[in-house]
């Protein structure tokens, strides 16, 4: 594709140039408040592993952005990926449903296993994989179509034509995403007319409609106001009962509120993983402690 500055894939590429500035500002602005840990921030010990990576290295061209990452993601729980900008957490997230494949010049070594099967194996159909491993993006991306069409898109492209069945899926997905009551009377209206928070919940509902096992969320609430953020967080918290969720977040309060397991990335290295409660109250690594206490970030 074109090599100009506004490369269409830029959005997926790691931020590089603007990083030092943001880091610096964050360091001075961030209040050093203790992170409150709710009781839910722990994990039952018997949770089976849904997704795991083994010695995963990842490269954009010659630029290595992930170093030897091995992480187990337990099923029916929320795993939060935290770390400063450019630490590789978003890249890691996108290796889990092969969204990085879209970018030219990326490669990896190591394995990503979904229920024990390497998703980068040649016999894996990436279209099917992305149906099983759904994704919600930082910026809500409703299609310029009706609310109904947005939700029905996944099942439709998979080949479902039955109108009654589609209507059922749309209703069920919107209910699960706690959006049904707000939109049930205007399913044929454009999704672009919804508020930012509603749009993001629509995107979550749209992902649910494909009936995935795993849902990846890339800073799903970072562009939302506090009230909408709270609603999205409540939703994530509810969804963990049925889905395996991996969420990238900059907000440590959020990580503590919604997740059971937390993984801390720094400069492409998985520094520490643990039950959220443990990691926030009693981090093993000095870097983790510095980050969660706001000494750098």
């Amino acid at each position, binding site marked *: 594709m074109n090599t100009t500055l506004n490369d269409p894939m830029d959005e997926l590429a790691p931020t590089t140039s603007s990083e030092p500035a943001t880091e610096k500002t964050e360091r001075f602005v961030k209040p050093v408040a203790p992170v409150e840990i709710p009781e839910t921030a722990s994990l039952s010990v018997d949770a089976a592993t849904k997704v795991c990576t083994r010695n995963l290295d990842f490269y954009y061209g010659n630029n290595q952005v992930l170093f030897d990452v091995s992480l187990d993601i337990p099923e029916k729980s929320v795993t939060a990926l935290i770390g400063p900008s450019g630490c590789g957490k978003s890249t890691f997230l996108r290796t889990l449903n092969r969204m990085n494949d879209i970018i030219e010049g990326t490669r990896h070594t190591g394995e990503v296993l979904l229920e024990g099967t390497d998703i980068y194996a040649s016999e894996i159909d990436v*279209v099917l994989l992305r149906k099983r491993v*759904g994704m919600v993006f930082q910026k809500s991306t409703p299609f310029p179509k009706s609310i109904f069409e947005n939700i029905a898109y996944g099942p439709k*492209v998979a080949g479902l034509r039955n109108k009654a069945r589609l209507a059922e899926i749309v209703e069920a997905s919107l209910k699960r995403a706690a959006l049904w009551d707000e939109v049930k009377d205007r399913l044929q209206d454009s999704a672009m007319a919804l508020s930012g928070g509603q749009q993001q919940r629509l995107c979550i509902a*749209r992902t649910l409609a494909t009936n995935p096992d795993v849902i990846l969320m890339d800073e799903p609430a970072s562009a939302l106001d506090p009230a909408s953020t709270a609603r999205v967080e409540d939703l994530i918290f509810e969804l963990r009962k049925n889905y395996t969720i991996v969420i990238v977040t900059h907000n440590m309060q959020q990580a503590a509120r919604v997740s059971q397991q937390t993984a801390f990335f720094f400069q492409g290295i998985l520094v520490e993983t643990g039950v959220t409660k443990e990691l926030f109250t009693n981090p093993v690594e000095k870097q983790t402690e510095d980050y969660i206490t706001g000494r750098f970030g």
Partner: protein
Amino acid sequence: MSDQELEYARLLKRRHLISSGFEWGCRIATFSALLFLGILLLGVVWQAWGWLDTQYLTSFDSRRPKAAGLLAGLWGTFWLILFTAIFTVPIGVGAAIYLEEYARDSWFTRVIKVNLANLAGVPSIVYGMLGVTAFVRMFGWFSAVDDLRIETYLGFGTLAIPLPLGRCLLAGSCTLSLLILPIVIIASQEALRAVPPSIRHASYALGATKWQTIRHQVLPAATPGISTGIILSLSRAMGETAPLIMIGALTYLAFAPGNLNTPMDGIRDPQLILDAPFDMFTSIPIQIFNWVGQPKSEFQHVAAAGSLVLLVLLVLFNATAIVIRNRAQKRITW
């Protein structure tokens, strides 16, 4: 006040003067352009007054100015643009989709992209020469056989394609297609590029294939831009004269392509529709060009009437483009 501040106050006046001077310069540039456009329009309307009537639009050309009409040119232009659109739209949009959505960034695709811009700037007379070689004579491949044609019976008539095409309307359409393809491709590429990548990613993340993503998300969002590009290039093709004259379009023609003089003729005898693309032809700008060169001064009025018709058609065409764009933009806002 210090010396420095006095100096600033003095400079301030000058700065304001330069500022308003620039505004006036731009204003004059705009109005002088409008003035010449107005003079042109007024002149054309003035000259065409009383000459543009039903008789003019329903008669063929004549040696007598009063009897001369634009019918052959109207039909010729209609057929030319119809076939130009049929050839240009799939090839142009297809090429743009390939270049934007599929082609990997390589030495080869970069050469193509750079040269598309160059091709868009090639003078139309050069395309005329290409058209003569490639379509009218077909590189001389069939010169050994006399009067070679491919004939197919289609149920309501026989489609007879002469080889080489010769100086026919279809050769003209092919040439015009080549002429506007680079513009259509570039405009379509820009429209496709304007579709946010996030929409594509969201579609992939829901398990859509590349084709489904293009079909359901990218193309609908890019349609206003693509169709605007197509219509504007077709209106350019409508006004082209030089390449068609090179192809061998006739300047004086007293029949419409295929002898199809009214739409009813085509319904009565569908064979005429199949004959039209391979018939001799003229077009509106060619007829105008012919009349302007006539010694009888009354033909200047006939030519002005033709120009007026062409201008009205172009305005209608471009207005359609604007309507399509506005309608689609209301539907899609990012």
